[in-house]
């Protein structure tokens, strides 16, 4: 028996029209679902079906970042602004560390124009150990899909308070990521004065939906900690 003339397996597949339609149709539908539902949200920050947001895949997306040297800024020492300065007190409730990322960690930022200045003062009310509160003071632009993001990192450390002033290096959002590593709930009280705008609830910079200028108990209406 010659090997070449007697292949063990079929040389060409004989597939019925129905199976062929199923394979191609199924392939097209499944392929479209994978592209629209997973690849586009994860790689291109576009979520036509909403699956990326539902599944959390969309959170994988991050723009390319350009880091700004925060110690090398120049510019005039005296500045005038068109708008009036504002003052806000923001009380941010954080659960103890058992409350998970949704309860014990939170990001709060305000929108600032390039060159605008604010004075800040924050303290962790209810925390005792300086190691219990982590903060990351930073800012970034809010790019369109496909654009690069410019980021500036001011200070990432642990402690119970911080006071100082910030002049924004670019148009964008500036603020803090706070994390409570302690075993008791705390309130971060942030006082701001200067030239900035609050970020509306649910937008980048205030995704947690913090309401300014109300007591901590009412500052995060959308969140119910799952503990007494």
């Amino acid at each position, binding site marked *: 028996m010659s090997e070449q003339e007697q292949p063990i397996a079929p040389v060409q*597949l004989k597939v019925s029209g129905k199976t062929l339609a199923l394979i*191609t149709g199924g392939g097209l539908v499944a392929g479209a679902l994978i592209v629209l539902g997973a690849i586009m949200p994860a790689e291109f920050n576009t979520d036509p079906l909403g699956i990326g947001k539902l599944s959390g895949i969309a959170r994988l997306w991050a723009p390319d970042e350009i880091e700004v040297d925060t110690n090398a800024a120049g510019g005039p020492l005296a500045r005038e602004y068109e708008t009036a300065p504002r003052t806000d007190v923001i009380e941010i409730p954080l659960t103890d560390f058992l409350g998970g990322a949704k309860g014990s960690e939170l990001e709060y930022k305000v929108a600032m124009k390039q060159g605008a200045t604010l004075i800040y003062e924050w303290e962790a009310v209810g925390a005792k150990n300086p190691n219990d509160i982590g903060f990351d003071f930073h800012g970034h632009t809010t790019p369109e899909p496909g654009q690069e993001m410019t980021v500036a990192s001011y200070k990432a450390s642990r402690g119970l308070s911080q006071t100082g002033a910030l002049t924004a290096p670019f148009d964008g959002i500036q603020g803090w990521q706070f994390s409570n590593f302690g075993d008791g709930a705390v309130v971060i009280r942030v006082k701001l004065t200067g030239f900035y705008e609050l970020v509306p609830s649910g937008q980048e910079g205030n995704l947690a939906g913090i309401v300014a200028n109300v007591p901590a108990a009412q500052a995060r209406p959308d969140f119910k900690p799952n503990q007494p």
Partner: protein
Amino acid sequence: MRRHHILFALLAFALIAPPVFAHAIGGSDAQFVRNTVGADPFPFLYLGAKHMVTGYDHLLFLLGVIFFLYRLKDVLLYVTLFSLGHSTTLILGVLFDFGVSAHLVDMVIGLSVSYKAFENLGGFRKLGFELDNRIAVGGFGLVHGLGLATKLQDLGLNPDGLLPNLIAFNIGVEIGQLIALSLILVVMTLWRTTKSFGRFAIAANALLFLAGIVLAGEQLAGYFLAGDA
């Protein structure tokens, strides 16, 4: 019975591997190419081979091409056609600086995978449309070469030593293809001797078809959304 698992692992990898990084020459390699002035054949040889071995869209197409090729003579014929095709466009594309979107070229490469899978499934015969396989493989070879060319062009090659570096890259591509092809052939040959081949051949080509659609769709999305092409 374990043999076909390797094949499915390969296919599964193609579906879940990070697609955006799969095809481009990136990181320190890109840095190297950008900074090279003058002929530097061996690094380019390596880069060509690496690009082929890690370029699973090329590999999936090859897998589709040799799926039903039993005789070494046929394998050599088709692989030579494919190589001629992609060498032509790789070298001419870079030398004459064809400007084609890398995303669109990669989309056609993805579609070439689906085309071959559909052909393996007897789809074109069923539709009463039969293109000579040699023309199809050679033609898609041209497109694959254009894909390789756009990747190299994106890096801004220095004109000093361009031709030797290009040829070295091309030889590297062929070496990489030989390495990958040998592995695919070994797996395929082992798999063909088992009973499972008959049963899973349809499934494997259905998966190939799907993988091609995903690759093409991803590149289409990249063309409209990535803003870098």
